[in-house]
């Protein structure tokens, strides 16, 4: 077992794990070295699966006894049948997808819920960097320079919520994290959330028609 307790995983991953019911079926898309999955399997007793692009991440995950396939959310989600998972998790990966909208649609086709976390491009520091200093933002959540970033579809919290509305996706809950990784309980308005949230975690489901 790699993960010893809840505190040993990233803050946004802790928030994600809190959204997941024990004993559920979970697919972690872009699972890295399997840290979240390992935690969920051992502490939430989920039936966990993962998809990871990097060979190193896949080897680390399988070596840790996790069910992970080497693949790509852009191409591999379409194979899964409808409604086979309770949760599909996409943490800090949406912005690197070639087709984020299609990925989001597939997530809610194959699963009851989707959990998405992403860096907020409208955080005040990003705005400051771009608006005042005229430079592409580089921060803890966006650590890459413009020329070597994997992030090709950056968005803001407002953009994301707007896309969810367009796709008839219901936002069940959301958590906004500031620069220190603390939950901003004051960010109840979209304006505040979009300004002070450095990253966001959304629990989504299909809108009941």
């Amino acid at each position, binding site marked *: 077992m790699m993960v010893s307790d809840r505190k040993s995983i990233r803050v946004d991953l802790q928030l994600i794990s809190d959204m997941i019911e024990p004993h559920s079926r979970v697919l972690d898309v872009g699972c890295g070295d399997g840290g979240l999955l390992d935690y969920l399997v051992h502490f939430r007793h989920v*039936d966990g*699966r993962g998809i990871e692009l990097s*060979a190193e991440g*896949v*080897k680390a*995950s*399988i*070596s*840790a*006894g*996790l*069910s*992970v*396939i*080497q*693949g790509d959310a852009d191409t*591999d989600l379409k*194979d*899964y*049948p409808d409604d*086979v998972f309770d949760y599909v998790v996409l943490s800090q990966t949406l912005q690197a997808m070639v087709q984020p909208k299609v990925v989001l649609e597939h997530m809610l086709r194959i699963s009851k819920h989707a959990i998405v976390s992403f860096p907020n491009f409208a955080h005040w520091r990003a705005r400051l960097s771009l608006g005042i200093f005229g430079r592409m933002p580089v921060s803890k959540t966006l650590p890459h320079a413009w020329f070597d970033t994997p992030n090709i579809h950056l968005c803001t919290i407002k953009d994301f919520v707007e896309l969810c509305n367009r796709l008839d996706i219901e936002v069940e809950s959301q958590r906004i994290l500031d620069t220190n990784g603390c939950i901003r309980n004051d960010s109840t308005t979209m304006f505040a959330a979009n300004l002070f949230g450095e990253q966001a975690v959304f629990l989504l489901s299909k809108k009941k028609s």
Partner: protein
Amino acid sequence: MTTGKSPSNEPSDGPSEPEVLPGHHVRLSVDTPLALDCGMEISDFPVSFQTYGELNADKSNAILVCHALTGDQFVADAHPMTGKPGWWDNLVGPGKAVDTGRYFVICINIIGGCMGTIGPRDIRSETGKPWGLDFPVITIADMVRCQALVIDHLGIDKLFSVIGGSMGGMQVLEWASMYPDRLWTAIPIASAALHTAQNIAFHEVGRQAIMSDPDWCGGDYLNQGKKPVKGLAVARMAAHITYLSDQALHRKFGRRLQDRNALTYGFDADFQVESYLRHQGITFVDRFDANSYLYITRAMDYFDLAAKHDGELSKAFKGSKVRFCIISFSGDWLYTTEGNRRIVHALNSVAANVSFAEIESDKGHDAFLLDEPDFERVLKGFLDGAEEHRNVEAPPS
């Protein structure tokens, strides 16, 4: 049991088969014949296998290792004819990835083979002569049915794992499809769910080489005291190229010359690579039967798991509770990562539990037999994880 000795008048400088092969020898289907895919039945036939480690009290620690085209049951001990280490000696043994200190490992010579299990070289009881081409054409599924009989014979209900590389991986896939309740995990390595046109084409070259050898005698060489040595050697040479990559051959031999300083302007083996291939061919004929080679390559060519399931591979695994671990090698152009990925997609489409890793290697198809630390790490980690999971589902008594 039938040991299938080489004809006594055959001159051979190479190692000869011992009178009795080491390991276990049983006769199966003594009362109930085994029905083969081709429609024929065989009964009361010999099967040879090796075991390593100890079967535990509740018979829950058994792993079946399936061998490839030219492999045999000697997976982890010295080969009785060549004296070489077992073909997966680096992987199977005490403390190794497939730990014989924990697992009871079984490896069975396949039906159609020539190391103690019934095949075209065996004496047919009805005629007192070798089967030759009267031996029924067998399939991968027939190999698996025969293996299941051995597992029955050992009193094992459910294997902890079925593992195999190349053709062994085809057997693994067939096991998971035919007997999903008899295995916890399935690990097909560097394998394929079907033989492509290119795969069949290479095999046909090999078969034609054997059948063009006058000493093949229409398949009757054993009765005529001959052996199609040249044809079988060429078949092996051609096949061996498909097991290696361009880079591996280049690294090993380049254009280096063999025991000479200049080209000879003749057709002797000027290049090291020629000498190497000739050696591969010549040593192979000492331990392998030409007709067996025909039958087994045919079985591989006939293999198309999807075809048996209305052309949809996923149907072969519908509802499967088996945990799969698919492993491919990036430099394998015989059974490619792309082909393995299609198996993963089929498994995903029925929501099967599957892991998949492509191991970086430029050594070609043979990488699965070589020392690849990443491969061993993944295999061991998967087995450990699966055991932890299994012990939750079915606690050891």
